[in-house]
Structure formats: structure tokens, C-alpha cells
């Protein structure tokens, strides 16, 4: 089974958000693999094993710094890595990113594309389904269980108040939600092995952005709250002051 697992370098989820000149400033942030993309790498390794062979290639659309995250996926067990390199990659919205990735991998052969359900930070939820749509293949999003046999894909995902079972056939794209698997940590042996694995870097063009960020600001401050003494005062405030009951 030929598998591509997509990873993005993102500011750590515990980083403070700095805003400078009405734009997000991540220059002081620690970076890491987008947490949802770890599920995509782990699932690639598991599906390859279940299929009895194949390759898992980790792909990132990013700048040179993203090589670090790609090395981490190699240390987890990916066979090869591909950097779709553009220094402005981080400014790309999900629709633009999908366009770039679809153009870059459309020529290659694959059975399964695995993405995180969203990248934290931009929180756009759109790259996996966008790539699949541009390539004309099925995509199942926010997957929490995945079974592939004889080219048939059966997946489950949570929607509001229910769990859906969805079927499709390969080649197929999947976006991964927490619960799909427990991503492994890189072992020392894996880290050593990663150094000898291939990491290909291909320069890609950045098309005009599809989403323009005009400005970014902190959330509107909430009006100061107050401490009430007991449940009776609380219910009174909710009924008569806030009028939410």
C-alpha cells in the first residue's frame, strides 16, 4: 500500500499568542508537529503493516525548518519524506494549501492519503477534503476508526449526537481525529535510522492566496464578572439579570 501522511509544523498549542501590527506573530513560539498529524503518521504505519507492505511517505508543505518535523516522522517509522518547499508556506490558507499539494502529488501513485482533521493555529479544517476534491478521489473526514480490506474503506466519525459509518474505495483520503490511534513516540533506534532515510525537497510555487487576512486581534474582553454567595443568588442572576433561563 502506497501511503502519504501529511504533516505541518505549527506553533506549540501551549504557546502564548502574540499579535504585532494587527497580525499574528509566531516568531517567539516553539514549534511542533500538528498534534492531529501524528494520528495521520501513526495510521499510515499501521495500515502499511495491515496491508503487509508498501511505503509511508511523510509530506509537508513548508519552509526548510519543517525538515525537523519530517525527521520526526521518519524517526516514528515513515520510510521517506517529501518537503514541498516554499518560504511563505505558513501564510497559505487551507484552500491554497490544498491546491499546492494536489498539484504536487497528483502525478505520483498512491492508495491512501492521511491528513490531520485540522491544523491547530489556522484551525481551517480544509486541506484533506480540498486535496481529495481536486484529485477527484473520495475523502472521509474526522475519522475515529478505519478499516481497509480488499480496496474497500470503512470508517467511522462522530457528528453532533451520532456516529456515522462511511464507506468508500481506494484511492481515498482520510482526515484523522483523536481516538483513531495512539501515536507512537520515536525510539532512539528510530531516531538513528531516520538520519539515513531519504528526505526529498521540491520547490513549489505559491499561487495567489484564496483567503486574505486583513487583521488579527485578541478576543473581545469579557465584561468583568462577579462572585455570588450561593445557588439562590446565582439562579436569581441567571433569571433576572442575564436572562438566560
Amino acid at each position, binding site marked *: 500500500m502506497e501511503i502519504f501522511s501529511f504533516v505541518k509544523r505549527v*506553533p506549540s*498549542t*501551549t504557546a502564548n*499568542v502574540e499579535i504585532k501590527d494587527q497580525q*499574528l506573530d509566531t516568531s517567539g513560539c516553539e514549534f511542533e508537529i500538528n498534534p492531529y498529524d501524528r494520528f495521520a503518521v501513526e495510521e499510515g504505519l499501521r495500515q502499511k503493516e495491515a496491508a503487509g507492505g508498501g511505503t509511508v511517505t511523510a509530506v509537508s508543505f513548508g519552509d526548510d525548518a519543517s525538515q525537523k518535523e519530517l525527521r520526526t516522522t521518519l524517526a516514528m517509522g515513515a520510510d521517506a519524506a517529501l518537503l514541498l518547499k516554499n518560504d511563505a508556506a505558513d501564510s497559505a490558507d*487551507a*484552500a491554497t494549501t*490544498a*491546491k499546492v499539494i494536489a498539484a504536487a502529488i497528483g502525478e505520483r501513485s498512491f492508495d491512501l492519503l492521511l491528513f490531520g482533521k485540522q491544523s*491547530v*493555529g*489556522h*484551525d*481551517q*479544517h*480544509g486541506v484533506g*477534503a*480540498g486535496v*481529495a*476534491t481536486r484529485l477527484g478521489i473520495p*475523502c*472521509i*473526514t*474526522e475519522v475515529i476508526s478505519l478499516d481497509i480490506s480488499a480496496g474497500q474503506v470503512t470508517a467511522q*466519525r*462522530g*457528528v*453532533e*449526537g*451520532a*456516529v*456515522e*459509518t*462511511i*464507506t*468508500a474505495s481506494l484511492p481515498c483520503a482520510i482526515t484523522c481525529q483523536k481516538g483513531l490511534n495512539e501515536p507512537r513516540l520515536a525510539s532512539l533506534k528510530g531516531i538513528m535510522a531516520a538520519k539515513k532515510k531519504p528526505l526529498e525537497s521540491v520547490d513549489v510555487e505559491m499561487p495567489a492566496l*484564496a*483567503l*486574505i*487576512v*486583513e*487583521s*488579527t486581534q*485578541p*478576543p473581545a474582553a*469579557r465584561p468583568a*464578572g*462577579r*462572585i*455570588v*454567595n*450561593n*445557588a*439562590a443568588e*446565582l*439562579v436569581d442572576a*441567571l433569571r433576572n439579570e*442575564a436572562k*438566560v*433561563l
Partner: protein
Amino acid sequence: MSSVLVILETRQGELRPSCLEAVGAARVIADAKGCAVVALAPESANLDAAVIGAAGADQLMVATAEVHSADAAAATAARVAREISANTVLLTATVRGRDITPRIAALLDTGFAPDCTAVDANTMVFTRPICGGKAFSNVRINGDVVVASLRPNFFNAAGREHTAEASEVPSEAAKAQVIEVAAQSGERPDVAEASIVISGGRGMGSPDNWHLLEKVADVIPATGLGASRAIVDSGWRPHSEQVGQTGKTVSPELYIAVGISGAIQHLAGMSSSKVIVAINKDADAPIFKHATYGIVGDALEILPELAAELEK
């Protein structure tokens, strides 16, 4: 003549009520542009044209597909968008809505603004949270058609007297298909859809105390039950109830956080709630900085009192 297209979400033929808010937002945009609102249900459904019209739509199109398929829904929506020369396509930022939105944008070769909390109908600048709600961006689509999904609980249905003109349209063929929808057990609404949410954290002490939260939820109709990640990771409650950065994002009218410290990742999922109540025994817990009302004290004592007061 162009139009604003709004995509309705149905499940087993029934309308998901939150998408009426998107119909209302479509009306506001259409009025600013002086054009019509077309509502499209991508699957066959039993819809009341008076309800859809009242929310703001002039026309209601119901497609023929019997089961949900995100790719077919997007292809049907993109085809209709072209047929009616849509200037804008609006969706609701539910799991299905988030799934279809980028596909429609790809098919129309345009951009999309996901999970928006506000729109200026004159400039078509959308406001949306980024970094789990730690900041908000004002964004604009660079493309011929504007595609956006709207976060539930931020927009309002129009609330007018009008019956939409109904018609049936063909569905496009499906690649991936939903073959089963298993509803979660219980009567309670999902946290992401409930207008009131009460969530418990580690301060609840033990899963055996959860009935105290459930009791409060039972006395306020349509209340959803949530939990912090600490609770979900301990296996006390299912992940479908987790609120926060790695769980669900909620913005109810009222959010009651019980025994929850207010970690930044929890706040990411609920800080846009209209009214926030915190019940915590530690007066310095960070959650109080975000709360509209707070009670400092032992949750296990306060919850039964709260249930009793609410019953009065």
C-alpha cells in the same frame, strides 16, 4: 441575477435547526447585495417551505439523493451555485458542514472562510477565531465566489412571514457514502448544539458524583453535558462530551463549569459562550477570570442546592 446560496443540513430527512441561522445570515448578505437567497438541501428531506422561508430564503431546492455523501453534496452544491450564479455560498460549521465547505471551494476554485462568528455584509469581511479562540482574524475571500461556514449560535434566522418557493433538483453521483448513522443514547442534546451546557472537571471528585451534574441538567430543558479532558482521559466520560481544543467547541447561551480549573485548552472550547458560570472551591482558579458569575465553594454541596433552586 446572482444569488446567495445556503446549504441546509438534514439527517434522516430532518432539518438540523442550527442551519436556519445560516439562512438568516444569507438573508442579511442578500439584502445588502439586493439579490435572492436560495436554500439547498443536498439530500432528499421532508422540509417545511414556510420554516425555510421564515428564516430568510426565497427559494428552497431539495436534491434527490437518499443518503449523505460529502462529495456528492459538494458537487450538487457547486453545480447549483453555477446555475444560479451564486455570489456567496454559506454553510453551518458542524462536522458535516466543515467537511463540505472546502470541497465546494475547491470545485468553484475559490477560497473559504471557515467557522466564522461575524460578517460585515457590506464589505464581506468575516471574523473567525484562530489558535483555538486565542485570537480573531478578519478575513476576505480572494475569488469570484465567497464560501464560508458559520459557527452555530452566532447568527439569527430572519423571523419573517414568508414561504419559500420549493423545487426538486437532481443530486450528483457519490464516491464516499454514509451507510449508517447511530444516534448516541440518551435524550440530551450534543454539547456542540445545546443552548445550555453544564460541564464537570476533576473537581467533581469521582464518576459516582456525575448524577449531581445530571440532576441540574435534567431540571433545565435541552441542556447538554460536557467534561474537561482530565475527565475524558480518566475514562469517566466519552470523548464526544469533551469541550476544548482537542474536543468540541461550544458557544451556548449559558456554560456552567463545575470543578474545572480553566486551562487555556479548555477555554479554547468554551470562551465564546454568552454567559459563563464557574463553580470552584479555589477562589484563584483561572476560570473565574472568564466567568460572568462565580461561586467559590464545594461543587458537591452546591450542585444539589442549584438543582433545588432551579426547580423552584
